[in-house]
């Protein structure tokens, strides 16, 4: 949910340890949490949204997705529960910036498979400069 700044370290990157840069912290202060959208979507974090059915998970995520794309963030949204009819209707009414929205519906993605993981990483980096906004 952010504009890519680094490549995915997938495969042949050599592993190395980086110690904490204390002089930098002493000079700049303790790093503060950055947000894509306060107070629930921090930058560069693993976020889990949990709740029962009909508790607003998908509509909230879609609305935030639309908001973030309008702010210039690339968002990859993988929907494999609600179906294209529901997602298309929902996203059209939420008015995202389609140039930054990568919506994948019912693609059969299985993130247990390395090939599918690589496909997700690749989707994140796709630029849809030729996308036409509905």
């Amino acid at each position, binding site marked *: 949910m952010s504009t890519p700044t680094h490549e995915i370290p997938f495969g042949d990157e050599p592993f190395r340890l980086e110690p904490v840069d204390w002089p930098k912290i002493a000079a700049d202060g303790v790093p503060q949490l950055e947000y894509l959208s306060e107070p629930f979507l921090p930058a560069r*974090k693993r*976020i889990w949204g949990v709740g*029962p059915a009909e*508790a607003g998970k998908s509509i909230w995520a879609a609305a935030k997705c639309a908001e973030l794309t309008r702010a210039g963030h690339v968002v990859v949204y993988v929907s494999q529960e609600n179906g294209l009819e529901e997602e298309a209707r929902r996203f059209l009414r939420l008015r995202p910036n389609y140039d930054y929205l990568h919506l994948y519906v019912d693609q059969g993605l299985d993130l247990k498979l390395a090939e599918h993981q690589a496909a997700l990483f690749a989707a994140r980096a796709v630029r849809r400069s030729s996308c036409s906004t509905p």
Partner: protein
Amino acid sequence: MLDTLSACWSGEEDSNAELGAFDRDVLKPLQAAGTSTLVLDHTGNPQSYVRRRGVSAPRGASSKGQKTDFLIEFTATGDGAFRLERGKKRGTHGKEPRAYQVVDTEDGDLELVESEAAGDVRDLAGEIVELLEDDEWRTANSLRKPKKHGGVGADVDAIKEALATDVRFESTTGDNLGKRKDSTYYRLRQASSAPNDASDGHDAWRRNEKQRSVVSPKETTLDVASSDPAPSSPLTTRCLVCEMEKPARIVAGVTYLACGHIFVAENEELPF
């Protein structure tokens, strides 16, 4: 955004080892590359880092709670309304609860109206008073819109309750205004309106308006005996609570200030 975990991953949710692999192979590489990942998940049994409420905890292996930096809990609160709060948060404090209402806008779009969640006191009537300072008639439906669209951003039922129970507002039906007959319109109570007759018609208000006498602001005091019959609005007077000049209306011996304070006699505030 992965909607949902079980639909995008065939691993065993009850297996800490498999969830650890999902975190290591998917979430961590994405995080290292500067990406935030939101995984939506259905609730099940109580887990670590989540209040022990059973149905509001992620289901499956306990490592779900351990492999997340932020955990957001969703709770349905009514028709199209739900609540979010942080169940776990590294580097922050507080649950930051928020309430959301799904709103169909007049132009066919979909919006989430956000407000402070229950537990936080909100002066909804006071917000509506500020919005209605222009004396225009509005429907509860228009008032519920987000602030950026000219509303107060709140649940329509809460707005209707505030409009019906606060004496500062009056209402009329749309046919009195040449608008939609089945709609009820609201505005700040005018000086000529009876304080407890919210159905006072617009035509009656027009007739009364012609009979008003003009009183300059400097003549307005909290001595209600000398201010009745009501002067034309808007007037300003000094609120003894806020200690500031505020727009005011005097109705049937009662002074209603825009700040929400109400006075019945000189220097005496009503106990509400």
